[in-house]
């Protein structure tokens, strides 16, 4: 057969069979591995789709305040399937944040951030910040009333920082007010700097995953404690586990298909679920729309600032919360990973998540 001959030809040159055995069929995962572990693969697919749709959008998008809105309108209405590409990109950015939050939630609940996986958590946390950053910078691109004023609000908040605040605002905007230099900066960050940094960090995240090995889910096993403290480097292998290919690859494909079903349901049936009408009005620096709000994943931060008597205090609380989350593996050093055997952790984490959800809802209706 031609395919076998081709495979043999490639194998002879690069040892393809050996790679397949080591990385796919011979790559064993924990027996009790669950569906939550496939969210990483889903995120990789989403990121790939964002890059692909972003590249296609760049064919027609013009990062110039005079032309940006018109170019988006042209993509949405004139370019064949432009509406689909643009909606996939816009909805995809929101879905990416949502899936990333679920991924972090599963890592949190299964204690997979614990030693020796501190660096996995840290790179993942930085990726979380960068994904929000890339969403924020992309938000300005359509140069609509929504994007213009949301960016004005977002950049303005940095003014609350003592001494350097005003300089930081000007630095981010490239001027006193949001204008053409802001679009230039945000566009460069959105299409060049942040994707490259994110891709590099995804690589680092995967490298760390490969070096430490997949963590065993803590539920359903008798021993859910980490061998801690770690004395020397050790790869966590899973003898007798299930092979990545075809077993878990099929789970990945199942999760990816379910994700695409949900994602495309939003794209086809509720594309404006995430947009307000201001998203389709060209930016007007002299007309402030009423009730301008940041994206849903920033609503908790938005509300936090409003409930504290000073913005600086609100910002400090957020910085403290984010620092705590970033350094969690260094602070939570208990070897136990089963959440049911960690009541204090469970109360704190569920409480924190409920506060975040509450602030988000409050921010939406405030």
């Amino acid at each position, binding site marked *: 057969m031609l395919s076998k001959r081709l495979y043999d030809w490639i194998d002879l040159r690069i040892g393809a069979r050996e790679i397949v055995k080591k990385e796919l069929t011979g790559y064993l995962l924990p027996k009790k591995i669950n569906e939550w572990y496939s969210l990483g693969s889903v995120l990789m697919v989403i990121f790939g789709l964002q890059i692909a749709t972003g590249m296609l959008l760049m064919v027609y998008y013009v990062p110039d305040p005079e032309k940006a809105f018109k170019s988006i*309108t*042209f993509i*949405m*209405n*004139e370019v064949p399937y432009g509406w689909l590409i643009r909606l996939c990109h816009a909805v995809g950015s929101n879905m990416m944040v949502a899936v990333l939050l679920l991924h972090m939630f599963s890592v949190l609940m299964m204690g997979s951030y614990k030693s020796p996986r501190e660096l996995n958590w840290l790179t993942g946390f930085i990726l*979380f*910040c960068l994904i*929000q*950053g890339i*969403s*924020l910078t992309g938000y300005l691109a359509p140069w609509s009333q929504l994007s213009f*004023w949301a960016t*004005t*609000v*977002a950049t*303005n*908040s*940095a003014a*609350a*920082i003592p*001494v*350097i605040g005003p300089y*930081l605002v000007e630095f981010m905007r490239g001027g006193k*007010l949001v204008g053409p230099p802001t679009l230039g900066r945000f566009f460069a960050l959105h299409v060049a700097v942040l994707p490259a940094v994110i891709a590099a960090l995804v690589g680092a995240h995967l490298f760390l995953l490969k070096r430490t090995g997949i963590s065993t889910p803590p539920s359903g096993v008798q021993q859910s404690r980490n061998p801690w403290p770690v004395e020397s480097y050790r790869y966590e292998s899973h003898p007798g586990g*299930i092979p990545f290919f*075809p*077993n878990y690859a*099929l*789970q990945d494909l*199942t999760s990816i*298909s*379910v994700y695409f*079903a949900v994602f*495309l349901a939003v*794209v*086809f*049936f509720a*594309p*404006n679920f995430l*947009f307000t*009408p201001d*998203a389709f*009005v060209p930016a007007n620096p*002299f007309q*402030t729309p009423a009730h*301008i*709000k940041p*994206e849903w994943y*920033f609503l908790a*931060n*938005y509300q*936090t*600032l*409003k409930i504290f008597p000073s913005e600086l205090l*609100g*910002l400090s609380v*957020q*910085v403290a919360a*984010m*620092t705590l989350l970033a350094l969690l593996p260094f602070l939570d050093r208990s070897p136990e990973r089963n959440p049911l055997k960690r009541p204090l952790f469970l109360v704190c984490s569920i409480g924190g998540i409920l506060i975040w959800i509450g602030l988000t809802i409050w921010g939406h209706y405030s």
Partner: protein
Amino acid sequence: MTLLPQHTRFRRRATFGALIFTLLAGPQAATAATAAAGEQPESACIQCHETLPDRLGAPVKLWRASIHAENGISCNACHGGDAKDAADAMNRTRGFLGAPKEAEVPAFCGRCHPGVMKDYLLSAHGKALGKGGPNCVTCHGNHRVVKASLELINEKNCSRCHSFERARTIRAAMQQTESYVVGIDARIAGFQAEGVDTDRLGKGLFAIRNRFHTLFHEVDVSLVKRESARIDAELGKLDLELKAIEDARARRRVVGGFVVTGLLLLAWLFHLLKKTYD
């Protein structure tokens, strides 16, 4: 090492500090928002008059609820002056006009609405200008200027000066066209809020509506009926274009339904296949 001026070094330190802060706080800090989103300053007229009592402050509140405010037409568009400079905002050398006298109102509004002014001046209302007849603001309001619609022809408004009977007949003749205009306007606005390029349709409706509005000052009932029928025919063409957009979107949803169902089936298939290996 090059010696930098004091302020440059401070700026560099400040920028470095800012970067460190941004890294720590992440985009979280960057999205911090205040309820007062409008950092871009409002006109000097509004900033000052909003704080003034009674008749000097009242126009701002009224204006905020007007069609002018909705379309970004601020005080200086009508009253002139320099809205960027509080000190000279009401300086006549900067084009400040102030409030017009009663007989000057049509010319005042007519600078932006010349067609309507012409219709008005030819109407019975216009001919009575300065002789106790109404001017623009009598029916349309002054600062709280409302969008021109048939709603303005009502018993309360008209019976301030004369009987409502004739106006009632004219209003009834235009009611169907008005409903058609309002319906198409709502559909265009709905599509615009979904990202559909409604620019051409909007302009088309704008022109038709303006033609229709010329009838609002007309008192010849048969002319109103004839012209309304012609306008209905033109609205019909816009209606067809909107239906084409609605059909295209309905087709998209059908395709979307198939795609989503296919993906769910695929997910189920992968799940079953995985089970065979477990």
